């Protein structure tokens, strides 16, 4: 579509939208940092209460070796927990959708599991699985298990009945009905659950680190907080934010590329 012959003059041309897409996050970040800096200047808050963005930036540069060393633990726990939780969620959703007895037995257990506050589980997981990676991976996996299971189960249960009828008249076996119709049809719903999981997975890892660990950004934040090194706490938070956002966008990009056929009313019209 050329810019001269834009059939929708009220819509911005594509190149302009792309440019906005790149610049918009930058504007938001700059505005947030400026507000933060202004807040410190206006309130006169001391450094041990609320450090300025420049203080935090200085700490990020000066202590980058310590920060990166701990960040790699948190990132590993989050990513492994994410895939473990997604795999478990997938394995739970498929039999629940296919076999009603499994659904009747498993659904109440799933709902009860959500009634337990995860923070309360963290000390038990540390007790059972130790101070190492395992307890944090389990914590992250537990947190994302539910959104993935529910979203995927919902997708599997809502398969267009016309497709299933058609497949049955074609003589499809139960297995091929699953692999060729139900699973692909449920992938957009799975993708929605996985996106939510991607956003919340770091929370599980950090909670695990707070309760008991010797590594990770959660551990570092707790120790820095106890020593009133608030600039270090903010530096940890910034790294966590940057990692969460990056992880979300990578996952989102991969899912969009893998499911180009899924309906998306937010996609720009070309």
């Amino acid at each position, binding site marked *: 579509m050329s810019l001269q012959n834009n059939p929708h003059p009220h819509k911005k041309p594509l190149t302009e939208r792309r440019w906005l897409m790149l610049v918009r996050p930058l504007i938001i970040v700059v505005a947030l940092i400026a507000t933060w800096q202004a807040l410190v200047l206006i309130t006169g808050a001391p450094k041990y209460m609320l450090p300025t963005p420049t203080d935090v930036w200085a700490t990020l540069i000066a202590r980058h070796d310590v920060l990166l060393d701990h960040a790699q633990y948190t990132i590993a726990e989050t990513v492994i927990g994410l895939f473990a939780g997604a795999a478990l969620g997938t394995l739970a959703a498929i039999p629940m959708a296919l076999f009603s007895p499994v659904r009747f037995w498993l659904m109440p257990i799933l709902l009860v599991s959500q009634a337990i506050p995860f923070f309360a589980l963290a000390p038990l997981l540390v007790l059972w699985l130790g101070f190492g990676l395992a307890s944090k991976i389990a914590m992250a996996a537990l947190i994302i298990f539910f959104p993935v299971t529910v979203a995927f189960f919902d997708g599997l249960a809502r398969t267009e009945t016309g*497709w299933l*009828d058609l497949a049955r*008249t074609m003589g499809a076996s139960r297995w091929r009905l699953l692999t*060729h119709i139900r699973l*692909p049809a449920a992938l957009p719903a799975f993708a929605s659950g996985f996106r939510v999981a991607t956003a919340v997975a770091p929370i599980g890892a950090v909670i695990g680190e707070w309760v008991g660990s010797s590594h990770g950004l959660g551990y570092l934040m707790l120790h820095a907080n106890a020593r009133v090194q608030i600039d270090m706490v903010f530096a940890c938070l910034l790294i966590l934010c940057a990692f969460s956002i990056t992880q979300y966008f990578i996952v989102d990009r991969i899912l969009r590329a893998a499911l180009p*056929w899924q309906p998306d009313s937010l996609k720009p019209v070309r």
Partner: protein
Amino acid sequence: MRDTEQAPQQAQNPTNFDIHLSGARVAFGGVDIFDDLDLTLRAGSFTCLLGPSGVGKSTLLRFLTGLVEGDVSGNITCSNGGILRNRIAYMAQQDLLLPWRTVRENVELGAVLRGERPDHARAEHLIAEVGLTDAAHLRPAKLSGGMKQRAALARTLMEDRPVVLMDEPFSALDPVNRLRLQELAARVLRGKTVLLVTHDPLEALRLGDHVHVLSGAPATLADAITPDGQSPRNITDPAILAQQAELLRQLGADISTDYGAEAVS
């Protein structure tokens, strides 16, 4: 695509058995949709089923596919023995194309679902027959409504079953595309035993060798109207228009002032 210029073709494997439905009963929630219903589909003939919305046309068609579950009874027999269930191809009102598969992959779906190796050459031939060669690599989202129904027709033909059951397959199309698809269906389905559910009397008379009206609660079948000549018939033919008036009368329309088309459309 210019279907009207195509010469009539004979099916390669014309269907050679009648289908008898006897004592059919379907009830939902204790309410009979139809009870003790009999219907015969003649070998290689095109039968159309008309009726008001909700009367049970689609249920009767789905009864033949074996897809209706619950309070169901009745016998379906084929005059040469064997069961009907494995001999039918089904085409619904919606195209039911899988959005993650291309047109070619959708046409080959049946073989894939049965774990067979798809006959690519035959798929290409059928895609060409319905005029979609240039769109064979596209996913359904890129197709128009008419193209999607043509792809669905190619998928139905790819099954190469002797019996084709169609549930209002052209009802969502604009009038011009509907006429084109009717011509195409009449040509490519010649020789097969077809049951078409429709709410359009003209469509039924254009395509059907036998046209039944299903009405009442529980629903009963009226004797068939049998239009002369080979389908697709000319819808401006006075004999066809007279039969349309008769069908509309059977459907309960008041045709004293006009043909009452609005009353049933």
